[in-house]
């Protein structure tokens, strides 16, 4: 047995015990003292002053303890929006904090909105505080607003309690390429790729009893470096999804016969992009396999018939091809590599990239040629092969 001096032991254990109180964990905050920020928006105003708008949750108005279980005395206005200006985002937040009894916490912010105007001037500064402060979530989605960013926060959509939540679910929805702050920063910082961000706006609901402000997903804002240069809308957005190989199921309308349309759901697909170096340009040969099912058909075709089925497949191929071409057109016109094609060339031909293409990539991109081969297969026509109200044809 080792002889232990009891006094020494006591002294040592006291020292160890003291270190417990130096861990910096004394930031105990009661729940009641938190102002929970759900979404923030950044706009640019005159003289390059940045207006920061924050949407807070007011859970106290949600109908908590005192109202009892069944009552549900929830009030409508549980979101609270405040805004201020400053040379940096934090300055504005600091100004807001001065008029708030509760401490603002950004750890639950899942949505960050920048206005189109700000996006066009460059969004690099917006990433700084997010990564610097541990509380902030890099997994927050970054959105570009058509018009003013704070309008999106002020909207009161019907389905969610907070417009921030609404925007979040839209950004995460099927058929949308969701880009969070980490991905965006990564994409902006690396060569051979440019970021795209979801592009949203506020629209009025139609024919509702009380017309409400709803938030709508429009497409993607196209960036070159950190500056917004263009927009992918409609089918261009779908085409971009193919090009980036980030396909998630979406439904599209295809013209089958003249003025006869069908709704087709793209279930999954595969895209192969192969760059080939030609003398004065790069050629991308793109091969697309599409797997789809029929959702609605106004052309009154019979999907059991091979002819009809072939027609559908061919029309769908053309449609997808057009969509991809549309996206390519936006990329080439705006000279922004939204589909990460530069990265592809760099991986296939690292040496040539280093010597020739890397330096002048946007010019090369704008004169690149694209050949697209699409191969569609509608595997599933639904529970019926044709319209059930269609009369039987005499044989």
């Amino acid at each position, binding site marked *: 047995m080792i002889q232990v001096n009891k006094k020494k032991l006591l002294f040592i254990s006291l020292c160890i015990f003291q270190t*417990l109180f130096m*861990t910096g*964990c004394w*930031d*105990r*905050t*009661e*729940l*009641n003292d*938190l102002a*929970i920020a*759900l979404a923030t928006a950044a706009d640019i105003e005159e003289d390059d002053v940045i207006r920061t708008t924050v949407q807070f*949750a007011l*859970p*106290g108005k*949600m*109908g*908590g*303890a*005192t109202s*009892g*279980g069944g009552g549900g005395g929830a009030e409508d206005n549980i979101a609270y929006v405040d805004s201020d200006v400053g040379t940096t985002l934090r300055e504005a937040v600091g100004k807001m904090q001065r008029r708030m009894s509760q401490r603002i*916490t950004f*750890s*639950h912010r*899942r949505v960050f909105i920048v206005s189109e105007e700000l996006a066009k001037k460059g969004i690099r500064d917006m990433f700084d505080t997010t990564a610097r402060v541990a*509380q902030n979530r890099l997994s927050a989605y970054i959105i570009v607003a058509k018009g003013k960013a704070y309008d999106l926060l002020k909207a009161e959509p019907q389905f969610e309690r907070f417009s921030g939540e609404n925007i979040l679910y839209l950004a995460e929805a099927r058929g949308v390429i969701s880009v969070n702050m980490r991905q965006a920063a990564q994409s902006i910082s690396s060569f051979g790729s440019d970021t795209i961000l979801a592009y949203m706006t506020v629209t009025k609901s139609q024919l509702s009893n009380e017309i409400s402000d709803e938030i709508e997903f429009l497409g993607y804002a196209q960036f070159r470096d950190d500056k917004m240069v263009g927009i992918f809308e409609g089918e261009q957005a779908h085409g971009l999804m193919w090009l980036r190989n980030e396909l998630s199921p979406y439904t599209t309308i295809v013209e089958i016969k003249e003025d006869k349309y069908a709704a087709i759901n793209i279930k999954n697909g595969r895209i192969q992009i192969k760059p080939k170096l030609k003398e004065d340009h790069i050629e991308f040969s793109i091969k697309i396999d599409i797997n789809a099912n029929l959702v609605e058909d106004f052309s009154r075709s019979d999907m059991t018939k091979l002819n009809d089925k072939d027609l559908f497949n061919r029309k769908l191929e053309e449609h997808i091809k057009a969509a991809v071409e549309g996206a390519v057109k936006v990329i080439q016109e705006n000279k922004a590599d939204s589909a990460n094609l530069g990265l592809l060339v760099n991986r296939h031909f690292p040496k040539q990239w280093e010597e020739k293409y890397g330096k002048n990539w946007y010019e090369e991109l704008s004169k690149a040629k694209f050949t697209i081969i699409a191969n569609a297969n509608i595997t599933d026509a639904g529970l019926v092969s044709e319209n059930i109200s269609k009369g039987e044809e005499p044989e």
Partner: protein
Amino acid sequence: MFFSKSKSKKKAKTYIDYTFVDELKGQPISNSLEENKKKLKYLFNDCSDVSISEFQIKNGQKALSIIISGMTNPELVNQAMKAMMNTENDASGIDDLRNVVLPFAQVVEDQNLGDFLMHILSGNLGILVDNESTGLAIGITGFEMRSISEPETESSIRGPREGFIENIRINTSMIRRKIKSPHLKTKPYRLGRVTGTDLAVVYLDNLIDPNLLKELDRRLNMIDIDGILESGYIEELIQDNIYSPFPQFKFSERPDTVAAALLQGKFAIIVDGTPDVLIAPTVFINLMQASEDYYERYMIATLIRWLRYLFLFLALTTPAFYIAFSTYHQDIIPTTLLLSIVAAHEAIPFPSIIEALIMEVTFEALREASVRLPKTIGQAVSILGALVVGQAAVEAGIVSAPMVIVVSVTGIASFTIPTFNAGIAIRLLRFPIMFAASLFGIFGIFMSLLLLLGHLANLKSFGVPYLAPLAPLRLGDLKDSVVAAPWPFMKNRPEYVTLQNQKRMGNELRQNVEKNGGLKNNESEEVSDPGE
């Protein structure tokens, strides 16, 4: 000084000076009946329940009978007296009485006063005969006792319904009925200077490690206490570590649980006067096993075991985690959940730790109250508890609804621990962990859990590491700790207990089961599958 000295000199002794009945063993029984009678009257002065009466045996010899009323079977006493007084044989002296006259199997000759008294005090009929220095103790004990009933603290759906009672002989017989083997030993001890409580150390001598027995014998012989009223006395007197909240003995009221432990090479200590039998060596895993695990189908038993482990963790940490999350780590609660917790917490005047303490302490008090109260009132208490502490407290805005849920979950969780003494250990440890959580958040919880783990790893029960078979790891034992394997696969006894013989069952059955996935009779010609 002088005064007191002279006073003590004068004062005559009014009692025979002894501290333990055993000390009278030195005093022989006198030849003279008169002297014996005087001595006994002296010893049992003012004992209204002792009846000492003189009588004559048939041949005219004087004799003395001593009984304690209520402890002997009156009918058998009458039979014995009749036999002695009406004997037709020419019986004379103790030897004849014993060999010829008395129609009882359990007759013991005592040569000294100590043994003789002890027998009488245990409910035997004592007979002294004139001119004989030997006393007879006739084992016709018969007193009222509780009948065998289902153990209320350890009820089960499947399995025997009988439980131990307060009588040591009935208890040993219940084990003997399960294990009909001369290997089953019930080694007697008598402890307690004043109470002279009977103990029996029960074990299977072909399994148990002799060193374990030697150590137990050493510890038991060191006990020098005036009284032992319950097995808890023994537990605390001979356990390895007093400064631990964890029990190093399992106690059970079920003969099947005890028999199963004996078959694993453990020993049990039965204490007269209590139905709770101690089992050791006990490891932590044992406290999480219920007898039903071995009777029910093994898949369900395994799942239920996992459920118990999960809820063990919950019982220990749920309030602590709630406190830590709501005061330090709001960042990692899902947003929607956070909003509802904040909403519920909006009007609450107390910080989370105070809120948790109010609720937990009240809950413990409620439970204590319902244990102490008569059953009829107990129900009223639980209604009071549910309404006042639960609903009303929430409606009054004193505690938040999530906290009520947390406390209820913790309460339910602590009831899933199958052994009571492990359950109270966990209940107790919940509080320091709550404090650690309120001071240091999750960091505090994990530091305290680490400390706890260190303590558990340090504990031993009769030389067996408390966390065995997990640490030190014994792979073979995992099938009866992490899972509950079906019986054909538990060929060997647990490894963590040192044994003389490891093998529990033969090979044939298991091989057959492994080959066919069960015992099937399709290879046998004589028996065909029923229904074919």
